[in-house]
């Protein structure tokens, strides 16, 4: 295996990993604010990407506008789901909410199939398809593009959480809901915002990855990779989500390079189990200490 090939495969893995990282981030954003596991995150990504694509086809929109449409649709969807459904689930345990989001994911996927069929569709890309040659190494612009755009989005999220009022409010609610409320923070507003934000992050990921994996109702299954990545990195930790995502993407790509068919698909999951054995709260997570 030449070094050039290895670099290409790793970069490709990092691109996939960036998408997993974005998905993991959306899941963690919602979880931190609301303690809910959103099973429907992937399907929401898929539907908002489809909406963007439908608008692009109907009105011949440029790709940048398509992205905006997808993100806006996602924001609306996230807000609606949180207000109309999740918030109604008062008196529900987190198991119940899990089933609600699961039911929602089934509805979204079937709904997308009814609206657009379960076919695969090509999706326009921001990036060129001709590879860039750096010496012997050939890199695909779409991989570089995905990595770059994802990193930019992650930086923006970091800035949001660190320096804006909303971000600080979200962090406060994540740390201690009751105290945050006592400090005058509208916890309900934080709930809505986190769902909207998470959905929008998902939409960006969807538009970035659709040219590579093709737009289809199957795209939502990336939520499983998102959960895996978030757990590997330490669920609840945002740097963990990023680390977990990148690691997962690269491992998924390296495994077929070095391992035979029988074991290569189990490797990411075996790695997850191995990591959890050594670090029960993931790589960057902290084991929750509950006071009695």
């Amino acid at each position, binding site marked *: 295996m030449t070094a050039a090939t290895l670099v290409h495969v790793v970069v490709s893995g990092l691109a996939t990993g960036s998408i997993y990282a974005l998905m993991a981030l959306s899941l963690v954003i919602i979880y931190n604010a609301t303690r809910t596991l959103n099973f429907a995150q992937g399907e929401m990504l898929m539907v908002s990407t489809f909406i963007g694509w439908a608008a692009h086809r109907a009105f011949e929109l440029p790709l940048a506008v398509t992205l905006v449409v997808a993100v806006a649709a996602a924001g609306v969807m996230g807000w609606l789901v949180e207000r109309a459904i999740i918030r109604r689930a008062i008196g*529900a345990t987190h198991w119940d909410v899990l*089933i609600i989001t699961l039911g929602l994911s*089934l*509805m979204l996927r079937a709904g997308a199939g009814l609206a657009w069929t379960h076919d695969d569709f090509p999706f326009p890309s921001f990036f060129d398809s001709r590879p860039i040659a750096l010496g012997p190494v050939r890199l695909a612009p779409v991989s570089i593009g995905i990595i770059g755009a994802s990193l930019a989005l992650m930086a923006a999220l970091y800035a949001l959480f660190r320096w804006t009022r909303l971000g600080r409010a979200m962090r406060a609610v994540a740390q201690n809901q009751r105290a945050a409320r006592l400090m005058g923070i509208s916890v309900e507003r934080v709930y809505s915002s986190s769902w909207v934000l998470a959905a929008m992050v998902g939409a960006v990921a969807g538009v970035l990855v659709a040219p590579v994996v093709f737009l289809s109702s199957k795209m939502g299954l990336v939520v499983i990779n998102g959960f895996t990545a978030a757990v590997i990195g330490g669920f609840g930790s945002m740097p963990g989500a990023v680390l977990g995502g990148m690691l997962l993407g690269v491992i998924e790509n390296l495994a077929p390079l070095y391992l035979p068919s029988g074991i290569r698909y*189990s490797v990411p999951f075996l790695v997850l*189990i191995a990591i*959890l054995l050594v670090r029960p709260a993931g790589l960057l997570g902290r084991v*929750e200490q509950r006071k009695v």
Partner: protein
Amino acid sequence: MRARGLAVAALVTALAAWPWVAPRYFVFLASVILVNVIVALGLNLLSGYTNQLSFGHAGFFAIGAYTAAVLTLRAPATPVVVTLALAGALTAAVGLAFGVPCLRLGGLYLTMATLAFGFVITEAILNLDALTNGADGLRVPAARLGAVALSTDAGRYYLTAAVAAVMVTAAVNLVRTRTGRAFLAIRESEIAAQASGVPVAAYKTLAFGLSAFYTGVAGGLFAFVVGFLSPDAFDVFLSVDFVVMIIVGGLGSVPGSIIGATVVTLLHDGLAAFQNYRPLIFGAILVACMLFMPGGVTQALGRAARR
């Protein structure tokens, strides 16, 4: 007390008489429901009682199913009860082996680990194709009860019903035993239980083993009822289905397991005619169910009874 006895007697009579009054298809469907009841009981032992939510039970189910199938193929003279017991035992062993390292894991980490486990098992089954026939799938011969081959729907139904009855009774009685009380204590508060001297780690591992045993036995029955196994049958969506059954029915309760398994199986069967609308309707029902019956059906019934 009398009412309870009469109710049980009526239920037993109804169950016994079912193959005589119902068309073949509904006898088959009843067997499928009973298999799912056993899985739900097993999953509830783990997730409802000791709070370890598993998204990997399709893996245990598969181990039980393939063990029973391979045993029946290679050693056809084995009585079916032995086959099922062995399927359960092997699955339990795997469950225990898996449960031990999982002790340190809590919440979502444990759940993810079980999901990973389920996937690894299905991959292993796919690749051990000398034993399991891999992707081609495995035709399961009829179970043997002595000289009789259980090759009719009624025969398989009675086997499943008998095993289910035993498993349900065991589960009901479990709650009254020390083990059952320990499980309930762990569910309420692991720390308090530990502080009271309950060896939490041992019981949590035991829960894994018991849960796996139940699911393995159910897997073996599944192999006979459906008659054909393939790795495609045991994916993560099946594991999710099992979780749906216990949450919809009611976590940590035997009636909850029975109701949840029955409702979800009937829904899947009844909705098949809706083709591409099927997941839409099923999903909507799930959302509505949990919005209007938080805690599951048994909790809702309990609240209604108390009013």
